[in-house]
Each structure stands twice: as C-alpha cells, then as structure tokens.
C-alpha cells in the first residue's frame, strides 16, 4: 500500500477537528471496504482517521419506540444483540447474513450505510424502516439520505454517529445472494411500519437501493405474499451484470419480496 498518516482520536469532536486539519483524509470504521479500496489504490487519502477509539459509537440501546444503533456497532454485535432481536428481529437476521463471520466481527453499520454499495444489505433496512441517520451535524431521514450508487448526501467530513430505527409492527429481509461474493443479487426488506407498508430493494437498482412503488401498492391492499403474485417491476431502473441480467433481476424482485413478506414477524 502507498503511505498515509494515521490518526485515532478519542471523541467525535476530535475526529471533526482532525478532518478539518486533513481535508483529504478518509474515515476508517471496520475497514472491510476501505482497506481493500486502499490496496487497489482506488482511494489514496493523505490520512486515515480511525473511529475505533471512540467507545460511545459502539453501542446499541432501545429508547421507547426507537432502536438506537451506534455507527461503530459491528454486524456481529447487531446480529447477537438481545435489544435488536426483541425490537426488530429482521435487522438482527440481516446483520447475521452479511458476508462471513470475520467480516461481521469488524464491519460496522456506519461504514456500510456511508458506503452505500448498491448490493449492500443495511441500506435496504434503513430505507424500508424509515430510519434516521444521525451525524455530528444533523439528522437525515432515510428517504433523503441515499443519493445513487456509492453515494449519499453526507458532506465531506461529516461523521455518522448513530442510526435511529423506529420499531415496526412487522418486518423481514430476504436476500437472494450471489454464492461467491455473498452480496445480494436481489434483497428485499419489507416493513409494516404502522404508518404504512414500505419495501426497499437492494442488489439490483441502477441507482442503488430504492423503494418499490409497485410492491408497496400491492402490499398496502393486503400484507401477504399472495398480494405480490403478478406484480411486474419495470427493468428501466434495474442493473444487470455477469451474475444476472436486468430482466432476470426485475423478475426476481417480487419473488424475493414475497419471501420477505412470508417471513415477516
């Protein structure tokens, strides 16, 4: 790897200061995306600022009707948390299905959401549950957070500190995974939120994670797998690659969403 400076501040305020002093710096969370990116020289920051020294970001708590997850909570912590399992079991199951055990032991929810990989799992949960992304500067609702593949509305130097998930009535995530990479070919997160049904699709959106109006309309009439029979998804905004054509993925969207509905608790 080419060289960079390394900082490990002890608080979010100190991270913000370090970012001001090093505008070319990148934040490091679990490193499961960033370190491979640095190795390939797809990013060459002058400095890396490690969030690993901030204990406050590594927490999970239930606060009334909201589940609060700190940005540095690992996938493994979320998968095993009694609070997450009780409040939103679908979220614990999603975290437990990311990558492999070693990725889950270090990869974090903040890193995954900030990265907004079009095939990542967490963005689907954030969008379907109508979560709020909390940063050191503001609170951003999910519908306004994701801004296309590998892109979000985060400003340069803005730090995600936590995610606030409203506890739904029922929810589930179904993932049709690419067998070698473990990433979703199609992933569907469905939630009966109490204020309506939401469905977010990952793995196949040409602009990254998206809400499916077709599926939400069908489920609003009846929250049941059968409601999705015959629902068609336009291929216009679906991406295809060597693992599956856009037509194939579009056809799989209602199938995977129906599986999620059938599992919802």
């Amino acid at each position, binding site marked *: *790897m*080419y*060289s*960079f*400076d*390394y900082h*490990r501040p002890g608080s979010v305020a100190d991270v913000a200061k370090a970012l001001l002093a090093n505008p070319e710096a990148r934040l*490091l969370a679990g*490193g*499961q995306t960033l*370190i*491979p990116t*640095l*190795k390939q020289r797809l990013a060459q920051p002058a400095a*890396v600022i*490690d969030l*690993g020294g901030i204990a406050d970001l590594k927490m999970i708590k239930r606060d009334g009707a909201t589940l609060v997850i700190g940005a540095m909570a690992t996938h*493994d912590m979320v998968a095993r948390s009694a609070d997450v399992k009780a409040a939103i079991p679908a979220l614990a199951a999603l975290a437990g299905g990311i*990558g*492999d*055990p*070693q*990725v889950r*032991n*270090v990869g974090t929810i903040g890193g995954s959401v900030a990265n907004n990989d079009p095939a990542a799992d967490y963005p689907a949960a954030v969008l379907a549950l109508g979560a709020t992304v909390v940063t050191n500067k503001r609170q951003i609702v999910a519908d306004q957070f994701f801004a296309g593949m590998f892109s979000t509305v985060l400003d340069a130097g803005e730090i995600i500190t936590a995610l606030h998930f409203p506890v739904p009535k029922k929810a589930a995530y179904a993932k049709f995974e690419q067998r070698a990479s*473990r990433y979703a070919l199609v992933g569907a997160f469905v939630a009966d939120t109490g204020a309506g049904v939401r469905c977010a699709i990952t793995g196949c959106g040409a602009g990254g994670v998206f809400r499916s109006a077709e599926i939400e309309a069908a489920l609003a009439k009846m929250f049941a797998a059968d409601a999705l029979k015959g629902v068609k998804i336009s291929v216009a905004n679906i991406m295809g690659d060597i693992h599956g054509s856009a037509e194939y993925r579009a056809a799989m969207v209602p199938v995977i969403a129906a599986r999620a509905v059938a599992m919802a608790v």
Partner: protein
Amino acid sequence: MPHVTMEVNGKAVKVDVAPSALLVEVLRRDLALTGTHVGCDTSQCGACVVHMNGASVKSCTVLAMQANGAKIVTIEGLSQGTNMHPVQAAFKEAHGLQCGFCTPGMVMSSADLLARNPNPSETEIRSWLKGNICRCTGYHNIVKAIQIAADTMSKKAAAE
C-alpha cells in the same frame, strides 16, 4: 515511525510500523509468525485469520495500527506447549487438511465458532466457514474435524 503495542500469543510486543502496514505483515515479517498465511490479500480466502480480542478477523484486512492495545492470538499461540488445541488435534485425526495452506485460518476460525457455539450443527459449521476457502479437501473432513473437536471440548468441559 509510529509503533504498536500488542499482546501476541501471551507476550507483550512493541513494533515500529508504517501506518499502512497490515496486521498480517507485522505478524509474518516483524514477528516471524509465519503460520498465518496470505492466500488472496483481498479479504476473500480466510488463510490469514487470527483472533483479535477474542474474535476471528482477517489479518490482511486490519491495519496493524488498528490492533494497537489488542490481544492477538495466532495459530502458533493456540496450543498449550506441545499439547495441541482440540481443534488442531481433530484436524489431524479427521484428515481435515491436504496441502495445509488454508489450515491455520480454518483452525482459528473454527476455534472462534466453538467458543461461541460449543455444539454447532453441520449447517451452522458450513455456514460459519463461508469466509474460509480450501482448494484441496472438499470441506467434508474439515466439517468432520470440527464435529470431533466440539465433542472433545464438550466432554472436557463436562469433566471439569
């Protein structure tokens, strides 16, 4: 040059490292612990798995600086003197290896599994090994080895 202080296999170490150095580079090059292998260097194969503060991690995808203050256990630190760890003994007994390249990572990963789940089902074992790739064995004997190790370890725990 910055340095890291870690406990590696029970011993305190202090090493000067470049900020871009990977944990696996420090283990293999600076500490001569070459039991930890590098198969892919792209976070896919699991040959480089070690324990960091008790959890299995891919040491090719952790900066040495991130391990500052951490407790690291590598394959060299798993046995008690000449007594092999039950997972190591079971890999030998069940012929859970052929060329042996993936084995250090397989053993470290399996030890983490059994520490969390002393009695895993075959499905749980296979699912846990998603991050460990073996080009030789076809996995059957690896799964068998982990089942044998689980058995030995629970019998030992019951006897204690």
